[in-house]
């Protein structure tokens, strides 16, 4: 749920990176954190296990430029992808304005991707959201790995709606900012619709 502050002339939006375990959600945020100007970002918080798996969430606050005299702030979160953290995933989706669904392109992870997508729909539903109404984009990550499934094939399974989608190699930053820009754009367009 975006938060418009007329007093501070600020608009805040929440974007969540969702996807199966190890698909590269945290890596996306880490890359964004590394490449963003110090004045545009706050501290990145990672609540992780000792083996660097996300335990509760990662959080990265970004402040971008102004729109119509309003400072724009985006709060990026990742969910923990491992199946048994479902309760935490659900909590993080609350109040979401836009979602990046990160896909692990490896053939052996296709079932996990589909399961995660279904899980996301269910969790959204429990918050009273509908995937049709929430802005989201898809990122096909790990394109560098030998068992990567052709994009066309993944698209047929996970993106029949034809939402904006991007190929990525997150540790190298390929596709990371393209994905972020796309979701921010969709979120702002949604805000504009809501404003009518």
């Amino acid at each position, binding site marked *: *749920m*975006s*938060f*418009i*502050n*007329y*007093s*501070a002339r600020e*608009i*805040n939006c*929440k974007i969540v990176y969702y996807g199966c375990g190890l698909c590269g959600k945290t890596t996306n945020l880490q890359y964004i954190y590394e490449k*963003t*100007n110090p004045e*545009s970002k*706050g*501290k990145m*918080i990672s*609540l992780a296990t000792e083996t660097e798996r996300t335990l*509760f*969430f990662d*959080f990265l*606050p*970004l402040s*971008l*430029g102004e*729109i*119509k*005299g*309003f400072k*724009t702030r985006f*709060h990026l979160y990742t969910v923990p992808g491992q199946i048994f953290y479902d*309760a*935490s995933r659900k*909590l*993080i989706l*609350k*109040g979401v304005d836009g979602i990046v669904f990160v896909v692990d392109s490896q053939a052996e992870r296709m079932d996990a991707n589909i399961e995660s997508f279904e899980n996301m729909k269910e969790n959204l539903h429990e*918050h*009273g*959201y509908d995937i049709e*109404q929430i802005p989201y984009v898809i990122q096909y990550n790990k394109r560098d790995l030998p068992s990567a499934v052709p994009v066309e094939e993944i698209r047929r399974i996970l993106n029949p709606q034809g939402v904006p989608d991007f190929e990525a190699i997150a540790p190298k930053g390929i596709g990371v*900012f393209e994905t972020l*820009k796309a979701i*921010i*754009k969709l979120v*702002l*367009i949604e*805000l*504009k619709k*809501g*404003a*009518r």
Partner: protein
Amino acid sequence: MAYPQLVMYEEEAKQISAILDKLVKDSNAKAVFLVDKDGQLISQSGETENFDSTSLASLTAGNIAATGGLAKLIGEKEFSIIFHEGEKDNIHISIVGQRVILVVIFDNRSSLGLVRLRVRKASDELAVIFDKLAEKSTKAASSESPFAEITDEDIDKLFNI
């Protein structure tokens, strides 16, 4: 959208500020923060420069969300107060009007009893304001929204990061 959007206006922002300033004083606290349940900072008062308020807001909301999950698990509606005691500083977190989170950071110049007492009073006052805000934002003439006329260009200009 499933939830009404939280909107803050000048008038209410000032009233909230005044309540927080008073709470800091009356409770001898170091700082107080008001955060929405999604982790966005609404207002703050006291020695706030010593704290990373954005991180604090996000972690507080996470904490309340996790605690709320635990409450449901054992059949409670929510735990409306969370208290963490440190060696020097303590943190008192409470839910105001089921909508927003009030965080008070204090040390041994104050006490849990005093903080509780003052928080209760401030919460009642804040709840009234947030009721009014909720009413205002549902009624808000959307025509006055500055975002109705966002252009593609506006959006592209954001990305000089």
